[in-house]
């Protein structure tokens, strides 16, 4: 007796079947109850190394605060910032931190829009990374100004003295874009956490319970709440992605709309955006390895997910490399002799070490990601991800410092300028500030999205169920006319 394929109700679910079975992102032993248990445990008892990281970061941050107070009391001179070296490490590090945040948005928003489910166990901490890197970057605007009380001049709001900000200045665009990005990222992070905060509320005691009760706002997981939540989350993701692109494009216009040699390049906005994604992805790999160990997330931060993350990082690194080379080629074959001289100065002058260091760390080192041993050895991978970010930090340094050191006017040349210890101290403090906030966040809030990992498990189970049903149908000989690839 022959049966039509369509007559069998179990075949309504279309499942892709290949000769080589796909590696599952999560193990078969992950259940909904286990997810709750593991993630909630991470809030209570991380490995002792957590405290080592936290207090080291606190110490670094304290030193940064000391440097800032010293600079505030003695003036910007102690930072060795002077004309023409007016930006120094502060703006280089500001761009670095702004960039770091972009990959959080890439993972949480873009990959959410295209339903790339592998992002689910790792997007929450990436989004948190975005929020804290933006907070860190915002500090540099204040630090760099020196006169903190004048901050409100860069905020686009009217005042009674008619001293309006210049709305056509990229610095005002910057302040608005970063403010928008920070607000939206914070809301996106919080919104995505509400179902998980309800889980925490249901399992916590004492002060933590009160905190989670307040933050979860009475979420009960009703069908109406889920329906609204899904629409809202998708809508916000759609806003976040173009916003992230616009923010770093605007940061790039701080440079590109000026006439300084080496900056007046059309490809700067995409170059900056890709650079941001690149350093962010490296940062996510670093944090992946750290969190996996510190909070015992081995079941969720798995090798297949890491492989995908590494592939994405490598692809972005290659596009960034291409854009970087394009920038050099544009300058080299262009008619701006000063820009050409600046390029030669970068590669052979006082900052050649930083230039070639950037080339090695950010352009050559990504190729090590192609080696299987590197992808599977977490210590080596951790070191490489840090090297990639050193490369990206050097990139920001060598965009700013050599250009200021040797610009259009010879009488402003400050060859061999080097930042003072105050600048280095504040930069180090910013790393402490970020790490401290991030680790504190992971200790208080779930850094793995419980409900989304549950969705992954549910989908994996459904898929397996459907596959099993299909196998049963085949074994029973119900679909003799079907060919292998279709079944």
């Amino acid at each position, binding site marked *: 007796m022959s049966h039509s394929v369509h007559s069998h109700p179990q075949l309504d679910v279309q499942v892709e079947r290949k000769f080589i079975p796909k590696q599952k992102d999560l193990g078969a032993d992950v*259940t*909904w*109850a286990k997810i*709750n248990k593991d993630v909630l445990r991470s809030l209570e008892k991380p490995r002792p190394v957590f405290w080592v990281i936290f207090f080291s970061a606190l110490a670094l941050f304290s030193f940064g605060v000391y440097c800032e107070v010293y600079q505030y009391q003695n003036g910007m001179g102690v930072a060795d910032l002077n004309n023409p070296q007016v930006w120094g490490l502060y703006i280089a590090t500001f761009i670095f931190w702004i960039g770091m945040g972009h990959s959080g948005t890439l993972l949480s928003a873009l990959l959410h829009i295209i339903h790339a489910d592998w992002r689910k166990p790792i997007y929450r901490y990436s989004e948190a990374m975005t929020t804290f890197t933006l907070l860190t970057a915002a500090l540099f605007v204040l630090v760099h100004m020196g006169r903190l009380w004048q901050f409100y001049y860069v905020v*686009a709001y*009217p005042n009674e003295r*008619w001293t*309006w900000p210049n*709305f*056509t200045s990229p610095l*005002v*665009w910057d302040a*608005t*874009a970063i403010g*928008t990005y920070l*607000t*939206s990222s914070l*809301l*996106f992070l919080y*919104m995505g956490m*509400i*179902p998980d905060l*309800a*889980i925490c509320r*249901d*399992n916590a005691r004492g002060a933590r319970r009160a905190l989670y009760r307040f933050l979860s*706002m*009475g*979420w*009960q*997981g*009703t*069908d*109406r*709440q*889920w*329906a*609204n*939540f*899904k*629409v*809202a989350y998708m*809508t*916000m993701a759609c*806003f*976040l992605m*173009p*916003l992230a692109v*616009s923010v770093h494009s*605007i940061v790039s216009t701080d440079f590109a709309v000026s006439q300084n040699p080496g900056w007046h390049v059309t490809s700067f906005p995409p170059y900056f955006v890709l650079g941001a994604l690149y350093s962010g992805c490296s940062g996510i790999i670093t944090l992946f390895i750290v969190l996996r160990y510190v909070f015992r997330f081995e079941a969720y931060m798995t090798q297949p997910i890491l492989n995908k993350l590494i592939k994405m990082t490598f692809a972005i690194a290659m596009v960034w490399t291409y854009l970087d080379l394009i920038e050099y080629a544009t300058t080299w074959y262009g008619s701006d002799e000063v820009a050409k001289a600046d390029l030669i100065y970068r590669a052979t002058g006082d900052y050649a070490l930083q230039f070639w260091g950037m080339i090695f760390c950010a352009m050559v080192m990504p190729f090590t990601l192609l080696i299987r041993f590197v992808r599977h050895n977490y210590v080596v991978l951790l070191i490489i991800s840090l090297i990639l970010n050193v490369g990206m930090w050097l990139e920001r340094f060598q965009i700013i410092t050599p250009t200021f050191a040797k610009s259009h006017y010879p009488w402003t040349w400050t060859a061999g300028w080097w930042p003072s210890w105050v600048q280095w101290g504040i930069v180090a403090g910013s790393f402490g500030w970020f790490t401290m906030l991030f680790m504190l966040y992971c200790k208080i809030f779930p850094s793995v999205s419980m*409900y989304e990992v*549950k*969705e992954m498990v*549910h989908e994996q189970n459904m898929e397996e169920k459907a596959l099993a049903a299909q196998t049963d149908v085949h074994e029973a000989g119900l679909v003799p006319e079907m060919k292998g690839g279709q079944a």
Partner: protein
Amino acid sequence: MKKSHTLALYADMDEAANALKELKSSGMSGFRMEDVVVKSPIDHPELSELLGPRPVYIQWFTLLGVLLGPTTGLVLIASAQASFIYQVRGGRPVVPLPPDMVLTYELFILSGVLMTVLATFVAMKLPGNRSPLYNASVSEDKIGILVKADPQSIPQINEILGRHKPLEIMGDQAR
């Protein structure tokens, strides 16, 4: 008439779906399908389908946000610039539209996001009080079906819910 509530907890989604199907087809009086609520640890479109249409209006608020935000923003920026109309501008426009578009775009995004968040909280009725029949296991791995009905219909509803292997059925006083 005061309504009563009953909550059944299921470990299996298929059983919960069967319970909903039977409730839907029962046609009993004193109860409406719109008053049935499913509580679950994840979104279950399969179950939501059985509950009937549950429209979401958030996108209309988002639309309002993306229309009002940039319009208001551009008007504010342009009016601020226009207040310098008597200042010598060297031939440049008093209100330069291309650079103003940058801030307008940022305000477009910001107001869209803010209106979406606001609408979401209103639509989800948050912050809100937890129902007395809330059970913490629905945030872990169980599916809850909460039914609001006339007190005299509750026994019959409990009977239907009980036929599909619930882990527990809880009720409250008529109110």
